[in-house]
């Protein structure tokens, strides 16, 4: 046969012991997330939106401080205000990234390649979630501290600005980053369940933005009963440094536990479906 044995030009692979597992897949997912432009656009968007919006709000408040009523000054939360860009809009960017990490594999068909390389689906699901959450947490922490410092600098003229050493402030800054990271994981779970980018983002927008607005329209007594069970309330509670700002909610970490429970349940449901369904 006049066939050139091209394949023989490959050198022999070193033998491997054990079996393909989480370590290699974590490395692979890290390669995947750092090798697409959408990751960098997302990081840029998160920083610009969080820091920019935070600066716009704090700057506006500082400029109008002289006209602000004493009662408004009394309830003013310099920390939460400086973080609003991150936990109101930056959150949306994180949600898009969380959904896209998994749904883009379905829209491109790459999931079949991924699952052929690593057919133990739990490993893929876990590695993807872990790498994504780590990336999100780091970028969210950067956004949170940058927003906080820039916001406090802009609020300096009010003499009502916060410092990290004040009570609850560090919790609020770190908590904002943790909150958006959990939102990202929730989006990841929804994405793995419905395998569709637009659908997953729509559901997350409904959960984080639309439902809270609708709940606000409820009669006061109903609102008081319902609001503490919303996933989005964790963001309000954890970033608040003024006592009694959210009278109908659990404690900040209590609200955080509510969101954590939703996220855990969604991650487990997503995992079961990811494993059980045809790819």
């Amino acid at each position: 046969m006049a066939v050139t044995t091209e394949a023989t030009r490959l050198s022999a692979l070193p033998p491997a012991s054990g079996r393909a597992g989480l370590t290699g897949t974590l490395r692979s997912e890290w390669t995947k997330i750092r090798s697409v432009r959408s990751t960098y656009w997302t990081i840029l968007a998160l920083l610009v939106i969080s820091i920019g919006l935070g600066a716009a709000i704090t700057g506006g408040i500082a400029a109008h401080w002289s006209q602000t009523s004493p009662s408004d000054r009394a309830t003013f939360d310099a920390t939460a205000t400086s973080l609003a860009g991150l936990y109101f809009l930056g959150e949306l960017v994180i949600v898009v990234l969380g959904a896209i990490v998994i749904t883009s594999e379905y829209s491109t068909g790459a999931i079949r390649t991924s699952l052929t390389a690593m057919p133990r689906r739990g490993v893929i699901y876990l590695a993807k979630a872990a790498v994504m959450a780590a990336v999100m947490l780091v970028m969210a922490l950067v956004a949170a501290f940058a927003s906080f410092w820039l916001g406090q600098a802009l609020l300096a003229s009010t003499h009502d600005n916060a410092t990290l050493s004040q009570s609850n402030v560090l919790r609020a800054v770190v908590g904002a980053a943790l909150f958006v990271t959990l939102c990202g994981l929730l989006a990841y779970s929804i994405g793995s369940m419905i395998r569709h980018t637009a659908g997953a983002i729509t559901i997350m927008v409904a959960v984080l933005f639309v439902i809270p607005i609708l709940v606000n329209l409820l009669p006061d007594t109903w609102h008081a009963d319902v609001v503490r069970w919303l996933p989005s309330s964790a963001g309000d509670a954890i970033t608040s440094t003024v006592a009694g700002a959210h009278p109908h909610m659990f404690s900040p970490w209590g609200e955080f536990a509510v969101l954590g429970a939703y996220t855990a349940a969604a991650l487990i449901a997503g995992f079961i479906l990811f494993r059980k369904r045809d790819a």
Partner: protein
Amino acid sequence: MIEVRGLTKRYGDKVAVNDLSFSVEPGKVTGFLGPNGAGKTTTMRLILGLDYPTAGSVTVHGKQYRELAYPMREVGALLDAKAVHGGRTAYNHLLSLAQTNNIPKRRVDEVLGLVGLTDVAKKRSKGFSLGMSQRLGIAGTLLGDPSVLMFDEPVNGLDPEGIRWIRNLMKALAAEGRTVFVSSHLMSEMENTADDIIVIGRGKLIANTTIEKFIAENSTETVRVRTPQIDALAKAVAAAGGTATANGDGSLLVQGLPTERVGDVAFEAGVRLHELSQTRASLEQAFMELTADSVEYHAGSDGTGSPSPAGPGGEADKAAPAAVGQPAGMATEQARAGRTS
């Protein structure tokens, strides 16, 4: 070595794969043939554990795919060359695959060189032509130096150069003792590449044989004769032990006698001949006849001029299927008999 036993897959009411059993041997190229929608891709997805079977089992090297210690070191599979994230470079795509199976980085450069993509290694695969995408996909299958390779319609949409390259590669891989399992909906693609063929239609096994056997069984020799004395020649041929069938265009198709014998018979009977030629039903024709009953969707009217198996039994139709359809019908029976024996 791939072993498929009683494999069945239903999607809702639709049976995509129906009680399929076969094995794919090392050291050979095994063609996996069937019309579009026959269940080839589904079968491959089931082998890889991408879909779960409704019934039956499939093993690679005696294990379920997901139980393989390092899947890419045992199986290299390419189902869809475009199933990659287009925003990732060729290099990073392969690197991410290699990392899952603890395959060293230098291997990525090696396989890129092997498939001729070194120059575009740092380019995002979005801009790749289909041929380049196929090469990238094949590079991925070779990362783990696997003993089993599986390609789904690898030459679809490729130019002749690309087709030749893939054919040679498949042969070379088989010559190295690897198991090469490759699907196609065109018999002609397999004619020069495959050693064994497995034919399925509507998810069922139709034939599982060697390519030589398939050719021998399915390319029945027919002699075409044109004569002004059709009836006289038909009688003479029948007397000599052959079968003559009117071809509709005024010619006669003779089976069961070699060309020389048909000429002699005509001479002895004093029949004037205007044409005496040997024809062979093409393999493609045989394959189409074999799978005709199992084609998912028939075209409304047959533009190729070949008889439609589902067509109306008009007068003009009768002659043609009798001439061409008969050997194919026999072939189907032979194939089925061969399967059960």
